[in-house]
């Protein structure tokens, strides 16, 4: 479904991605782990085409996101839903207008129909009845769930999660984890999440990949990752300050 091939990206002199290779199968839940500044966010932004690589390709459903332009990028993006770290809800629009935003832009549905779809998606994330609230009035966990409802509004084939549990209390984090699993099972989506929350990674991943110094250093199932011999991965998953990973 998604193939990242030999991806390079530098900002000025800073090399962020230095030859990333990663394959994500259809219907799979891939979690990319790595420390702050390891380039996880940059990777996920390349997958949805928000950033253009210096070198390499991102093949999605047979098309290379890195080479597409303008309208073709937008057409490919309609396959995606993305949940941002801070939810990135539009402050000036109410909850249902946020959830129904893409429907309003890309379908001929009336406002009434959009509102109904938005209500349905909100129900899926456990937030029925808040259609008319404004984003500023929501708590962090609610914002994330509205963001998730917005991400699934167009029934995407691929869902991207940028640090889905960061900044939430452990219980709310688990609610989000359950929702991510539910999305995969109910909607059969392919999902890519980036996180440094190992509890979340073990729970939601089919496979985990670790990004370090601009490269994928290990890919495996949660079990394989737990019993890895790779000292880099070992240090990261056990959360130790001592080890081969240099702390800047």
């Amino acid at each position, binding site marked *: 479904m998604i193939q990242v091939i030999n991806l390079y990206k530098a900002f000025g002199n800073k090399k962020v991605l230095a030859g990333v290779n990663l394959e994500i199968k259809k219907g799979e839940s891939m979690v990319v782990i790595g420390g702050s500044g390891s380039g996880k966010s940059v990777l996920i932004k390349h997958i949805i085409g928000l950033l253009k690589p210096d070198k390499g390709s991102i093949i999605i459903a047979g098309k290379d996101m890195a080479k597409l332009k303008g309208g073709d990028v*937008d*057409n490919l*993006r309609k396959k995606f839903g993305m949940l*941002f770290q801070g939810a990135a809800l539009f402050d000036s629009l109410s909850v249902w207008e946020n959830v129904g935003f893409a429907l309003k832009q890309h379908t001929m549905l009336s406002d009434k129909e959009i509102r109904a779809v938005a209500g349905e998606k909100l129900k899926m994330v456990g937030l029925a009845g808040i259609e008319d609230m404004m984003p500023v009035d929501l708590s962090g966990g609610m914002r994330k769930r509205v963001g998730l409802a917005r991400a699934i509004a167009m029934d995407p084939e691929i869902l991207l999660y940028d640090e889905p549990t960061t900044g939430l209390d452990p219980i709310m984090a688990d609610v989000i984890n359950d929702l991510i699993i539910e999305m995969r099972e109910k909607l059969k989506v392919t999902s890519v999440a980036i996180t440094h929350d190992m509890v979340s990674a073990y729970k939601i991943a089919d496979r985990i990949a670790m990004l370090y110094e601009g490269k994928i250093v290990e890919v495996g199932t949660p079990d394989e990752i737990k019993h890895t011999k790779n000292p880099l991965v070992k240090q990261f998953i056990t959360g130790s300050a001592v080890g081969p990973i240099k702390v800047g």
Partner: protein
Amino acid sequence: MNWLEDIGLAVAHFIEEMGRIMVFFIETLLWLFRPPLYLRNIFKQMEEIGVNSVGVVIIMASFTGMVLALQSYTGFKRFNAESLVGTVVALSMTRELGPVLTGLIVAGRAGASMAAELGTMRVTEQIDALATMATNPIKYLAVPRVIAGFIMLPLLTIISNMLGIFGGYLVGVKVLDANPVVYMRRSFDYLEMNDVFSGLFKAAIFGLIIAVISCYKGFYAAGGAEGVGKATTGAVVISMMLILISDYFLTAILF
């Protein structure tokens, strides 16, 4: 030779920024002519830039007209030309002060809020979110603001002109004891349509400048709250500078 290097860097940054503003402007122009037109956004921005600025524009213009009458009276009395106060007020307001002061005030009010709003949308990833939903952010956010600026600045300038002339009239007649009929006639006898239109044309250009600069600054804001603050200040300062500079050249070349 460190200071030479610093100056060189500053010049390079300035040229780079001007280049990026041009690219942003051209991109906005290209999107202007591609459907869909977000009418709802355009009207909302017209309200934000235009309707919400009416209050400050009224106060600014009436007091400018009033002080202009007082000042020109003081000067003109020295060579017995008091009767021309109305003419001076009308010409200065329509040709110069109406458009320029309106431009500066809108740059401070609407330009700042535009840059702050878009800057916040940038740092909270709302602009990225738009893009991920296959909606071009320039089309959705910048184009409506540019259209609204281009349309609303001339309209605000018309209000400015009328109130400025009216303010001058009030001071002329009530304070300086001019004959109301003569004052009015002097105001409009020497006023040509070209004076008004040249002012409105300049205002439209100023509207364009304010919207393009403020959107650009907002779009390229980076670095959290501090970045948004810098973007806002930058938007206001650059808009005001460009209004004053372009005002001279527009006046010199066209009229």
